[in-house]
């Protein structure tokens, strides 16, 4: 395992709010992701989970509240290329749609190399990353349009890892994949975390996926935190009605449609 200070939080979010015109998308959200930990944010559409992810990576600006990653504040937009680069090396993101999250004109290898070069890292790491996410030689040199959804998502993960971030935000990163592929990627993500000690912040609507990948979970509804805690506790013994409703809506063996 990696020598990460278990005490330090990889991500600390306090009093986060986001308004879009009159719409209050994120309301007073607080959470931590411990270094090397894994937090799942669950919610239905419109719950504000993706907005939180975008604020974390700096694609949206919080209306109020603070975001700190590895102890450094990033609630204000980065000034200058240096700061942008540093933030990039702290936290990366993998998006949902593998078909649009890669530059269609760039091969996996080129995309990874571009990032490595940008962060001044050794280009020989490319092969390492390609191997780490389980891409073949041929796949690594192919354009995205010649890859399947799962392969593309592996490329996206490799590209994010190329910055060697401490935290990886997974924004519905497996929900668009076929079931059999989803399992592969989930296993891959678990392996990576085990190898590198990277912290995950998984945004998902799928409780089962969260349970599989995360230690802690945060349930979000209409921008507010409903419930937060260890996965086992929250999912097995929900304290809130909403969490219970969510959980019961998931079809499982013996599940009845007319609740």
């Amino acid at each position, binding site marked *: 395992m990696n020598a990460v200070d278990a005490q330090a939080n990889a991500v600390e979010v306090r009093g986060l709010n986001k308004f879009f015109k009159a719409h209050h998308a994120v309301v007073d959200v607080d959470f931590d992701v411990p270094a090397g930990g894994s937090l799942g944010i669950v919610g239905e559409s419109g719950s504000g989970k993706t907005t939180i992810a975008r604020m974390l990576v700096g694609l949206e600006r919080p209306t109020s509240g603070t975001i700190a990653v590895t102890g450094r504040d990033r609630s204000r937009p980065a000034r200058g290329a240096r700061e*942008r680069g540093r933030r*990039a090396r702290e936290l990366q993101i993998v998006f949902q749609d593998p078909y649009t*999250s890669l530059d269609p004109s760039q091969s996996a290898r080129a995309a990874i190399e571009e990032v490595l070069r*940008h962060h001044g890292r050794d280009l020989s790491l490319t092969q390492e990353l390609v191997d780490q996410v389980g891409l073949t030689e041929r796949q690594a040199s192919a354009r995205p349009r010649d890859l399947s959804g799962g392969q593309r998502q592996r490329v996206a993960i490799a590209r994010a890892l190329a910055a060697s971030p401490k935290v990886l935000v997974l924004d519905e990163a497996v929900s668009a*994949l076929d079931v059999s592929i989803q399992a592969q990627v989930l296993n891959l993500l678990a392996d990576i975390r085990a190898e590198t000690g990277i912290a995950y912040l998984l945004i998902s609507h799928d409780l089962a996926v969260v349970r599989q990948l995360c230690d802690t979970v945060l349930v979000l509804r209409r921008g507010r935190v409903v419930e937060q805690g260890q996965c086992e506790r929250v999912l097995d013994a929900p304290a809130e009605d909403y969490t219970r409703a969510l959980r019961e809506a998931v079809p499982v063996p013996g599940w009845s449609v007319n609740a």
Partner: protein
Amino acid sequence: MNSVKSTWKRLNKALGRSGMLSLAFLVVVLLAAVLAPLVAPADPNQSSLLDAYAGPSGAHLLGADGIGRDLLSRLIFGARTSLLGPALIVGVSLLIGIPLALLASWYGGWVDGVVARVFDLVYALPGLLLAVLTVALFGPGLTPAVVALSIAYIPFLARIVRAAARQQRVSPYVDALAVQGFGMLRITVRHILRNIAPVVVGQAAIAFGYALLDLASLSYLGLAVQAPTPDWGVMVSDSDAMLKGYWLQVLAPGVLIVLTVLALTVLGARISGEKPPGYLRRRPAKAVAAEKNRTTVGAAA
């Protein structure tokens, strides 16, 4: 050798038969224009009154015009002015339009609003009218006509570039690059521009064709290229020949204009890979695009 072959194959596949034919035709026209002094059988301005309206013969392959100038040579040299003007127009409007469109699409918000408003305003002035007014200002000539049409074509191309860039801009890969710490300039130039290049090149080819038409119309009206400079538009305006029944004098340049524009539009549509002609996409069906649900990946083959 192999790579030449494969490039050829790829080109063939991308452009299709009509596209390849168009390309071939345009290459011939372009070569004729560039090499005009070498390929033209005679000096396009050399007149000999004895040959006035001479029919096609060994001396004049397509015959001669009203003051005995070789028609073929005038057509060949005419390709120069006829192509140069549109090239300038497209070049200038791309040079100004692309940065504006990229800025607007990158920043969105009020920047986009202002740029779009300005485009709308210029777009409200018909290019031909703008050109006629410019001519009223500076007098006829290629330069004022080119300047006016360049201005008129900026929104024409910039709107398309903006829409295409906007589509890229909202693509997660751009967000991913931004999260990687890449700056706006690098992302727009190295990624967005590269990805919309086919659209830009294709639409530029189509715009080239339409600029050629507009410029030829102006030359026809006597407002752009001036006689006796050989130019296709000017040659079509030779009412003298028409009245006297020498149709070839008028029809040959007319047909060349039509064929060149046809080739350009076909090629442009092929390159940009779109079905409806892009110049019509005044407002991309935004509502429809936005409504289109994100389909689950791989829902059906």
